[in-house]
């Protein structure tokens, strides 16, 4: 592992950028990737598209990672000055009690509920965000309805090679794409890095990105729940990236997936496989169906406790995924 990856990830998770409000992340990514590519643009949806040109007529491969995180939306303020929230993406009320959040303008808040609330009854209607305001008017001076907050929890090292913090889904994927961009070397194809918007709320930015890019193939980098942590978890930390065979709305492109598996095997890189029950698991289904159809495969980073302030990932998985993507691209003639 080189030391730019931790620095980049640290910077990326510190950026405020929930779904639909990715402008700061896009700005930082543009600056971070500019020197590795030939062209950077933002499409009308808000996706950041960075192109590393290939020889004329070469095949075009899009690497996509959503750059937003989950968050919560201010939908009302109580007479006492507490902000009422609705989730943006896959946040569970039970994971948020006592957490600190930060709003777009830097306002800090704490999420709480009535003490003694039975966790079984806990939903967003029972939560509030306390920003230290004493009245509705005071609260709305600091946070307008429609503004969003995200978890405020920085990155820390833990154990042997594990990193913990909020927003690893999917800033870790963005960091992997930067790593690929920096260390790619000569490849026989054109490579398009697409940092997409609103991946936390479903298949949104990926479709418009693929429509604009018209790639010959797409490799999506996202996250998958790692064990322990519920029946959904099929993958483990530190055992390599996971090839998503299927999710609730997407089937991996067979030939492309076989190619990824073969490259991993030949290079001796670890690869897990996974089937996601989630119908709304990021960009893949939108990309696969865009612009007449795009052969698409998904490589997920195993992450424990997705959607919480304590998301955990393993550096080995990040570097193995970056290595695998570079190897796949090297063979994409």
């Amino acid at each position, binding site marked *: 592992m080189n030391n730019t990856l931790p620095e980049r990830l640290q910077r990326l998770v510190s950026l405020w950028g929930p*779904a*639909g*409000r990715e402008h700061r992340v896009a700005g930082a990514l543009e600056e971070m990737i500019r020197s590795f590519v030939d062209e950077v643009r933002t*499409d*009308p*949806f*808000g*996706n950041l598209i960075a192109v590393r040109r290939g020889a004329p007529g070469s095949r075009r491969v899009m690497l996509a990672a959503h750059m937003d995180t989950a968050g919560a*939306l201010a*939908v*009302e303020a*109580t007479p006492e000055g507490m902000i*009422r929230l*609705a*989730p*943006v993406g896959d946040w569970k009320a039970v994971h948020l009690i006592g957490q600190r959040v930060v709003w777009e303008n830097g306002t800090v808040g704490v999420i709480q509920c009535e003490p003694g609330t039975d966790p079984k009854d806990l939903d967003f*209607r029972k939560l509030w965000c306390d920003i230290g305001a004493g009245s509705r008017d005071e609260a709305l001076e600091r946070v307008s*309805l*429609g503004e969003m907050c995200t978890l405020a929890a920085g990155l820390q090292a833990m154990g042997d090679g594990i990193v913990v913090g909020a927003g690893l889904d999917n800033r870790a994927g963005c960091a992997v794409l930067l790593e690929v961009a920096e260390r790619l070397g000569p490849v026989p194809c054109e490579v398009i890095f697409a940092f997409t918007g*609103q991946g936390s*709320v479903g298949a*949104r*930015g990926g*479709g*418009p*990105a693929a*429509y*604009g890019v018209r790639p010959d193939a797409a490799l999506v980098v996202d996250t998958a729940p790692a064990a322990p942590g519920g029946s959904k978890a099929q993958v483990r930390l530190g055992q390599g990236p996971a090839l998503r065979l299927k999710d609730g709305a997407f089937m991996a492109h067979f030939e492309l997936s076989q190619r990824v598996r073969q490259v991993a095997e030949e290079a001796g890189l670890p690869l897990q496989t996974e089937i996601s029950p989630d119908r709304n698991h990021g960009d893949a289904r*939108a990309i696969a169906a865009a612009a007449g159809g795009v052969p698409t495969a998904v490589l997920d980073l195993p992450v424990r406790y997705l959607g919480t302030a304590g998301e955990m990932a393993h550096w080995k998985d990040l570097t193995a995924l970056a290595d695998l993507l570079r190897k796949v691209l090297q063979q994409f003639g």
Partner: protein
Amino acid sequence: MLLEKLSNACGVSGWEDEVRDLLRRELQRHVDAIWTDPLGNLLVRKGSGPVKVMLDAHMDEVGFCVGAITPEGYLKLKKIGGLDDRVLPGREVWVTQRRIPGVLGVKAWHLCSSEERRKVIPLSEMYVDLGCRSRAEVEALGIELGDPVYFATTFEYFSDRVVKGKAFDDRAGCAVLAAVLQGEAYPGLTLYGAFTVQEEVGLRGAQAAAYQLNPDLVVALEGTGSAAGPGVDPADTITNMGEGPAISLMDASGIPNRKVFELLVAAARENGIRHQFRRFTGGGTDAGAAALQRAGIPACTVSVPCRYIHTGAALLHLDDLEGAVALIRHFLRKVEKGEFRR
């Protein structure tokens, strides 16, 4: 009033012809082009300025279709769009665009156990009674499987400002869009009106409309829920009837484009138009579907609050309808002046 004609017109998803014909008649004198696309969307163009704006309102309404004709001469129904079983029993309905009258029957009270009397009756246990006594009598009326079925509701005034009718979702949006198109011209804009099909079954027509018109921005005009009632927490009302048009914060289909959202809010504030926010993030609108077309299209939704939406009798306040028209007009002037920048 056009809302009255629109509400009384019948058009579940896939059967929008009557609404489309009405809108075509009302609008053709006021626009530069009017046509129907292959999916059935009614599209109009007014002006040919440099900025392309698509205003969207869906023509279809929720209702039913005939799922079976029983040997005894009753109809079993399937839902078209989201309907609440609790408010269906005993409603009068119209079968087909010919408005053949029927009533939604349920098992008689004296035949129900005390447990059955307490539970919600699912639509599958209801039937339409047309007064027929055999399948042959039903067929003699020309009723076939798949025929549309509507709430038999006639528009009326509850007061001079509050009206009752069916299908305010989204004939309220159609009325707002028609009023904008019948009004002043915007030389700086190519203003498209998209009256779309099949919104209630998956935001379908808007996808085709936004793809082919390829506008710079989209505003969907909607009727949305207003859940205020006795004992309801003010935070749970979605919107409040009579407090102005509602600008969406987010819904299940999309996050409003920030620039479009902010320009709508500015148009309301600068012109003293009473407005509110839609304080609920469920449901979907055509804006969400349009936003994903091509390489992305900035979009937002403005709604007229409707009590008892998706039922046989909704209420809306004409201040909210007229406020929505005023808001959109001021918004278009701002877009025309170049205040929308991607």
